[in-house]
């Protein structure tokens, strides 16, 4: 049951990311009636941009304590959004606009071409924009200084990278069981509580120990350290020695206080909450933009009929460009949030990205392409199918998604909400 709720939480987080990407597909389909195959590559570009920018910034400020200033997050987010927006505009302006009157097949092929272009340009290893520390070695009695290993390059190169941790993924629903003074046991790596403690079956326990550490120059500082407890379930009287990792000696634990923390059965991480909050607010903003503003009604007009909208005084080129940029910005936001949850970044042409984009596209189709609320519904639905299906039998999780797509297309070709809502964008 715990696992069920854990997967449910993951579904909400992943689903809102899928929904954000799916919105980009659905917006463009709404106004131009074609699938922007390059959309998933814009997403990948966003992820790599936020990686590159954060690495460069963190490398520049080079804070030894390893604490990331909050503004790095903002800078990474804004740069991803800017780069993706500009690229989205250029794609529309230079690849799709000349083909607006061309047959659908040609536009489709161009979209595949743009997608391949973005993938493969991203794979080229370009000049380094951030380097690790310089390496010195002694060769023939002389000190040779070499430039450090490139940490980030533009374009991004073909080797997978790992996103630096911008925000600590704090578990939000932990409960403090008790607190008090802590002493070290006789043996190194054991602690002794001042009160009786009870550990229940099947739960994880942790100690947050506040202790004083001597600096090298004689001053002291206070640190908070996390110690994992290694204890059998049961009640222990004060004075019982309980093992911990990492191991600390009695001298190190002199005069320290503790908080005994029980991990929740279903942990809710800060990052998951951020993902859901940011995504939902973007979706609400989009909904307001489309249904409450003049620009939004111009977009809806275009989705009904481009020629008529143009006759009514809508600047179609501007609205189409705006729609593309809007889709790219949504993809960039998802791309900024995604590596926070999954820090491993694969090369831009890796199958994982293409599959991710495809799943988001499937979400848009399942919900009813061209329909904004449908894309959101589809995003959560696809995430649920993928994660719960993967829970049942993991190797087939991609197969479930495509099976759902085929089933929906065969029995409800307009998608789930394709008919129910008449306003389309």
């Amino acid at each position, binding site marked *: 049951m715990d696992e069920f709720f854990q997967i449910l939480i993951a579904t909400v987080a992943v689903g809102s990311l899928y929904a954000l990407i799916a919105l980009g597909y659905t917006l463009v389909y709404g106004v131009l009636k*074609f*699938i922007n195959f390059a959309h998933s590559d814009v997403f990948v570009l966003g992820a790599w941009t936020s990686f590159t920018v954060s690495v460069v910034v963190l490398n520049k400020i080079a804070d030894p304590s390893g604490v990331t200033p909050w503004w790095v997050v903002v800078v990474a987010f804004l740069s991803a959004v800017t780069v993706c927006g500009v690229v989205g505009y250029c794609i529309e302006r230079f*690849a799709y606009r*000349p*083909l607006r*009157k*061309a*047959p*659908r*097949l*040609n*536009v*489709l*092929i*161009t979209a*595949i*071409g*743009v*997608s*391949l*272009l973005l*993938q*493969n*340009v991203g*794979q*080229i*290893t370009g000049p380094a924009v951030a380097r690790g520390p310089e390496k010195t070695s002694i060769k023939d009695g002389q000190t040779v200084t070499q430039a450090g290993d490139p940490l980030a390059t533009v374009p991004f190169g073909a080797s997978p990278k790992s996103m630096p941790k911008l925000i600590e993924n704090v578990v939000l629903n932990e409960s403090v069981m008790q607190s008090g003074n802590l002493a070290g046991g006789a043996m190194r790596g054991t602690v002794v509580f001042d009160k009786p403690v009870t550990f229940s079956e099947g739960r994880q326990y942790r100690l947050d120990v506040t202790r004083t550490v001597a600096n090298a120059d004689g001053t002291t500082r206070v640190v908070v350290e996390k110690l994992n407890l290694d204890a059998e379930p049961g009640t222990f009287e004060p004075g019982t020695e309980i093992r911990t990792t990492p191991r600390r000696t009695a001298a190190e634990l002199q005069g320290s206080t503790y908080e005994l923390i029980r991990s929740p059965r279903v942990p809710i991480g800060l990052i998951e909450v951020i993902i859901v909050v940011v995504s939902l607010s973007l979706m609400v903003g989009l909904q307001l933009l489309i249904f409450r503003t003049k620009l939004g009604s111009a977009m809806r007009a275009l989705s009904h009929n481009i020629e008529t909208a143009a006759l009514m005084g809508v600047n179609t080129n501007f609205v189409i460009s705006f729609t593309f940029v809007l889709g790219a910005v949504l993809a960039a936001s998802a791309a900024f949030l995604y590596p926070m949850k999954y820090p491993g970044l694969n090369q831009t*042409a890796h*199958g994982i990205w*293409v*599959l991710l984009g*495809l799943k988001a*596209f*499937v979400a848009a*189709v399942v919900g009813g392409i061209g329909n904004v609320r449908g894309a959101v519904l589809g995003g959560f639905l696809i995430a649920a199918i993928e994660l719960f299906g993967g829970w049942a039998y993991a*190797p*087939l999780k*991609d*197969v479930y*998604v*495509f*099976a759902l*797509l*085929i089933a929906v*297309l*065969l029995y409800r*070709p307009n998608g789930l909400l394709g008919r129910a809502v008449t306003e389309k964008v």
Partner: protein
Amino acid sequence: MKTLAQHISEISPARAFRPVAVFVPWVVCVLLALAVHFVSPLLVNEYWESVLQRMGVFIVAAVSLNIVNGFTGQFSMGHAGFMAIGGYIGAGVTYYGSLILHGSVGDPNFAVQGTLLMLAGLVAGACTAAGAGYLVGLPSLRLRGDYLAIVTLGFGEIIRVLLELTPKQVSDAAAVKASPIVSFFGFNGATGFAGTPAYANLFWIWLFVAITCVIAYRMKTSSSGRAFLSIREDEIAARAMGVDLTKYKVRAFVLAAFFGGVAGALYSHTGVNPSPTDAGFQRSFDIIIMVVLGGLGSVSGSVLAAMILVLMPELLRDLQQYRLVLYALLLIVMMLVRPKGLFGVKEIWDLSRGDRKQPVGKGGTP
């Protein structure tokens, strides 16, 4: 009542010759394949022979994809999936067949029977791929362009995932004899199926290149081909003219998948181990680029484009990193300046006639 002999005697000499004329292209096919097989070793070394083999395989793949993407205008992006099905089944028949019949794989004494096994595997792989093509073709009746592209792309991915789940390869002849059906699906999961002997020499590959091209060209100029082209130009008009959309779309898919399977089976017999990634979209994109570059609907265009695109990486070895960027740019620029590909729907030998026959609008087909 006239007897059969009387019927035949009434046929004029010109018509009596027709049954023979039907066979002329096939004789030419065999002669061409023999020519490639015996002449190329005199001209090039072993490495370039392997390039020629790969070229042949990709010509078969591109021409077969052209039947569905080019002639019929149904944009399939899962051709690598069909190729992988053919490749795996073909390799499986040869490998496990050799184990059952001979007890070992790749014995030179077993080469003749092995080649026959390869042909059997080719047919089996192609037929399985055609069956898969039928299954994929059915939803295509309800899906328009973009959706079909996605469904076929998804199909290729499903094939890839399923291949990754296959059990380990069995290399023990006794174990295979004990349970031949179970061990036949031992395709070795994600690592790929190794050890298939390279029975597909230049003769067989280029024989199938010639056969595929002849069938595709004849298909194009037949009533089926005209039905395909009419579907591609305008489905509603085609239906109004009495073209059975269901029949012809499925037929195009089955044919394309069949020859895709042939290409895959040939490829797995050239010493290249089939692996699940062969079913992925990357390979499908490669073939699509060949078809689009050569011209959607042009058999000779596909042949030429496949040749160019197989040779290009060999010639541009230093620019390996930029090769795919170049392809992508080629695709975009081609759509902007020459939306129908190099030859459009025409063949190379039609070019001298000029553009009079087909007035083409600026944006290609409406």
